[in-house]
């Protein structure tokens, strides 16, 4: 079980309000991702749930029980840190055993759980090594092992993949997703990487300046972003935002159109521009197009290879159905 409810939870450091009162419900077994730019308070929010920081106001409930004043260990939550935070003087086995030892579990049960975790995480051969002798990916697996042996109510991940190289990151992402499928335990995952958020989450919480901008499934956020911030943050490359005549024509103060919803052509189209940079990936081609009256280039994505290069004229046709409209405050117009 791991249902976590935040009621009016707030945090301030002195006069600085890092997190104004916010409400959030996390269902048992859900994979929830907190995403937002750095400094948006996502890690602070996670640390409040973990109990590593005290709330300035509000209530945190775990499985219906008020956990606001509980010390971290009593909350039955396990945390995986960005820096792995392994105990460097202990072997992998002792690292994984540490929470069990602290809980006073008997040796036989400890050994059984460690064996299990090691098998699941492919660490059996490394149990007697020290963290210093392991690669980044292995260290991260040890950190996860240390979390799963406790059979916690929920897992908290604080940017766990940020220190890994790109290839390893994709692999570990899959491993964590698989682990979630298998354990069916609540997971709260903090990242600034919207690709991680989109690929892993059941539910994404987009944060900015401590405020929740939107909560929803990855596709809800992609298709119906509540405001310009979410629209710009979710999706890669970023959504293009246009203001002025084009927006007014379509009944908004600003309009947003994703790069994949604009069709490029060498001959005809609604808008005309000049290719600034073209990125040819084989599977896709990205164009950064300069248009009259716009300072920022418009990003366009075309499937497959399209032979247009720097300086070429390009015609663009947006998919009118997929255009998002926003009002003066940046809120979505339905």
């Amino acid at each position, binding site marked *: 079980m791991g249902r976590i409810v935040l009621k009016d939870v707030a945090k301030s450091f002195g006069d600085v309000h890092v997190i104004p009162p916010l409400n959030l419900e996390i269902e048992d077994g859900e994979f929830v991702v907190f995403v937002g730019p750095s400094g948006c308070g996502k890690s602070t929010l996670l640390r409040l749930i*973990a109990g*590593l920081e005290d709330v300035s106001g509000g209530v945190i409930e775990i499985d219906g029980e008020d956990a606001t004043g509980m*010390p*971290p*260990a009593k909350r039955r*939550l*396990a*945390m995986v*840190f*960005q*820096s792995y*935070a*392994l*105990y*460097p*003087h202990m072997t992998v086995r002792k690292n994984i055993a*540490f*929470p069990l030892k*602290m*809980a006073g579990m008997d040796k036989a049960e400890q050994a059984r759980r460690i064996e299990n975790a090691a098998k699941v995480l492919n660490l059996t051969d490394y149990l007697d090594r020290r963290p210093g002798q392991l690669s980044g990916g292995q260290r991260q697996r040890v950190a996860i092992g*240390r979390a799963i042996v*406790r059979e916690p109510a929920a897992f908290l991940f604080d940017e766990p993949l940020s220190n890994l190289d790109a290839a390893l990151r994709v692999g570990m992402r899959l491993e964590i997703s698989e682990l979630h499928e298998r354990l069916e335990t609540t997971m709260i995952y903090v990242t600034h990487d919207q690709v991680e958020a989109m690929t892993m989450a059941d539910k994404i919480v987009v944060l900015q300046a401590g405020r929740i901008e939107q909560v929803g499934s990855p596709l809800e956020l992609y298709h119906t972003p509540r405001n310009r911030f979410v629209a710009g943050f979710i999706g890669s490359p970023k959504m293009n935002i246009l203001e002025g005549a084009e927006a007014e024509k379509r009944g908004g103060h600003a309009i947003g159109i994703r790069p994949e919803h604009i069709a490029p052509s060498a001959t005809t189209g609604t808008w005309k521009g000049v290719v600034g940079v073209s990125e040819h990936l084989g599977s896709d081609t990205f164009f950064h197009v300069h248009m009259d009256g716009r300072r920022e280039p418009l990003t366009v994505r075309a499937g497959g290879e399209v032979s247009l290069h720097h300086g070429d004229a390009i015609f663009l046709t947006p998919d009118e159905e997929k255009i998002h409209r926003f009002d003066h405050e940046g809120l979505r117009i339905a």
Partner: protein
Amino acid sequence: MARAVTTNRKVVSTVFGWAIAILIFFPILWTILTSFKTEAEAIASPPSFLVFDWTLENYSTVQERSDYFLHFMNSVILSLGSTVLGLLIAIPAAWSMAFVPAKRTKDVLMWMLSTKMLPPVGVLVPIYLIFRDIGLLDTRLGLVIVLTLINLPIIIWMLFTYFREIPGDILEAARMDGASLRDEIIHVLTPMAVPGIASTLLLNVILAWNEAFWTLNLTAANAAPLTAFIASYSSPEGLFYAKLSAASTMAIAPILILGWFSQKQLVRGLTFGAVK
């Protein structure tokens, strides 16, 4: 590219280095040599350097006159006792200042260090009177307390510097894993800080071993360590250079040997955090 160094330069630097080292070491060498001379040779002018009648007589006289091993044991007990007691107090203190600093933590640290700037003689009389009244004069316990207190600022500073280098994440991980504050300090922090604690311990043992002001003023016979043992040779009966040298050699030998074997640890300890 590494800087090119000519052979000439190397020779000059080497000679220069050795010259400085010998200059600094010379008084100790002279003391050791004098301890093997007779009293007459010790004050002879011009002094003889290596060519004299080598004798162990001074050592046996010194041992007969005053019990070296009693003072040696006192030195061991005082330096180890004050160091262990100091560490027991300093580890939690440094922990709290490194990991849960308050607004005034920096000030507290500076204040502690400032106590080292006070001339000890300024508080000698009150401390002497207090010790006399509660019966701590010339006791090992009393000296252990005094030595602990005078070295505590340095122990706390050194440990604080070490602890600050330990990532807070690891201690938070321990907290998440169910460790109490005690578990956190015993099972996680202390083992990780072993190199730092070891060099703090070594330095403090040396400082306590060499401490002469308090040990001379607060002891008579029972608790007197080796510093008092040396001092007793500049006595009313006159100055016996050879015997004084023998006593000094016997007193500094243990700490010199300890220092020699632990120099790597000491250098690392004293320069920790300077270069990352």
